[in-house]
């Protein structure tokens, strides 16, 4: 019988990393878990990523930030192997994701957990069945053991009482937390979050943020959070990357970022309307659009 691993969700203490995991992690390895090396990617003719390089160290929570449409979600898809880069390498746990075949890719994905932007819970099954899904499909564990594990995961996100509900009966924040529980069902070594804070009320924001941090430390996993929520991210992450127009334009720890004078980062962090990321979408001059001729001397 495999040793069940206990996760105490109510305390903020960090459990030791010597618990038996179903998929053992190499904690002493100092190479980065994820390494993206000069990656290019385009959707058809539209280039999204132009030479991105970043590293994610093991055991850390890393945020990838940037404006909408800058390619953050694409990065996650590339790491997960759902997209293939046209140039460059993506290494996850020492393996080049772009060269894996279907079986190896699926084996790799079993070590990853992903939280989609709106939860993406399976609407035709209960919350319990959603979280139990991967356990039932990928392991041979008996039902009573699965039951215990599922309830533990739900307890970790504070939603053990909703086990019998259907996703349609949950609020947005609750659905996202259930999806979180589902993402960590197999104790993955890499957890990816796609805009986990989008559209949440302040309380849910804080809860989700803290859960991300606690889960990461308790599981001994590595987390990548793609978001544009500055306030929440700065409180929980160890390192940040800033992406703009397909390139990394800044990086650092939360303290370094707060002190940074780099224009793009400054605009983002201090929420300024205009700066390196322009307010106006490129268009003809305002006067021309309105059909006016300006008097001499006017701007």
């Amino acid at each position: 019988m495999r040793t069940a691993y206990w996760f105490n969700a109510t305390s903020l203490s960090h459990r030791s990393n010597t618990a038996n995991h179903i998929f053992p992690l190499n904690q002493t390895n100092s190479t980065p878990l994820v390494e993206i090396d000069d990656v290019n990617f385009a959707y058809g003719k539209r280039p999204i990523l132009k030479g991105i390089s970043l590293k994610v160290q093991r055991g850390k929570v890393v945020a990838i930030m940037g404006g909408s449409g800058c390619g953050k979600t694409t990065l996650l898809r590339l790491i997960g192997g759902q997209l293939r880069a046209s140039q460059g390498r993506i290494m996850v746990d020492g393996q080049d994701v772009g060269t894996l075949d279907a079986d190896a890719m699926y084996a790799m994905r079993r070590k990853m957990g992903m939280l989609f932007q709106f939860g993406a819970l399976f609407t035709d099954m209960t919350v319990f069945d959603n979280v139990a899904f991967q356990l039932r499909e990928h392991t041979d564990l008996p039902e009573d053991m699965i039951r215990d594990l599922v309830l533990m995961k739900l307890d970790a996100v504070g939603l053990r009482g909703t086990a019998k509900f259907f996703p349609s009966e949950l609020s947005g924040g609750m659905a996202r937390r259930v999806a979180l529980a589902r993402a960590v069902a197999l104790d993955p070594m890499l957890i990816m979050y796609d805009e986990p804070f989008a559209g949440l009320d302040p309380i849910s924001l804080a809860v989700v943020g803290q859960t991300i941090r606690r889960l990461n430390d308790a599981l001994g996993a590595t987390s990548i959070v793609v978001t544009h929520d500055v306030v929440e991210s700065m409180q929980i992450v160890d390192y940040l990357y800033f992406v703009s127009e397909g390139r990394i334009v800044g990086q650092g720890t939360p303290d370094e970022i707060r002190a940074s004078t780099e224009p793009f980062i400054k605009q983002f962090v201090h929420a300024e309307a205009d700066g390196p990321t322009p307010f106006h979408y490129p268009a003809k001059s305002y006067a021309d659009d309105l059909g006016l001729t300006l008097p001499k001397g006017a701007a």
Partner: protein
Amino acid sequence: MINAVRSLGRRGIETLWRGGVMARFFWLVITSSTMSFRRFSLTIREIYFAGVMSLVIIMVSGLFVGMVLGLQGFETLQKYGAEETMGVLVALSLVRELGPVVSALLFASRAGSAITAEIGLMKATEQLKAMDMMAIDPIARVVAPRFWAGVISMPLLAALFSAMGIFGGYVVGVALIDIDPGVFWSNMQAAVDFRYDVLNGFVKSIVFGIAISIIATFEGFDAEPTAEGVSRATTRTVVTSALTVLLLDLVLTAFMLRGVH
């Protein structure tokens, strides 16, 4: 004018290209089908939603069609003093043609569109992507069971349609028009050949089932992940299924007719 011709050509090429994509999808579904049978509970669940839920519409429609056939047939046969062959008319029309074809059209509208909408919605809410990221092949888990459910349900529904139709014809003939029941059945039994009529109808319904199921699942899987995309896909399923069923019916009938004495 030139633009109209151009768009027609473009449409034709697109349709052909889509047909090719659908053929490849068909192959994918077939090769991913082991899970549908090893975990038959998945397929059973889909048979419930596709087959059992279509029972009412199929059986009621079959009854009405049979009764109408009886009434219409009686009126014409009466002129030749051949009212007692009304059972033959009803049975042959149903078993050979109307049973498989009409039930296929009804199935496509009811179950086919439901399957397309369901899969399309799963795609729109990223459930299929989530499943893929969890290292579970969505085609094997979501698409293949629905496909096989359609293939299994279709012949059963067609048979039920024909049976209810013959019963409807019986009701009209014996109860309303006063045809002798013994003559009704014996004439019918003499005229309906198992191999030529019943078996051919059965084969037709299986072929229709395959066609409708693959079209429904493909359109859902290929739908644009928006509300309009899903609605367009659902419409496409019903229209494409109907046209395909009628075309296949023509081909199969011509093919089967050659084998007459």
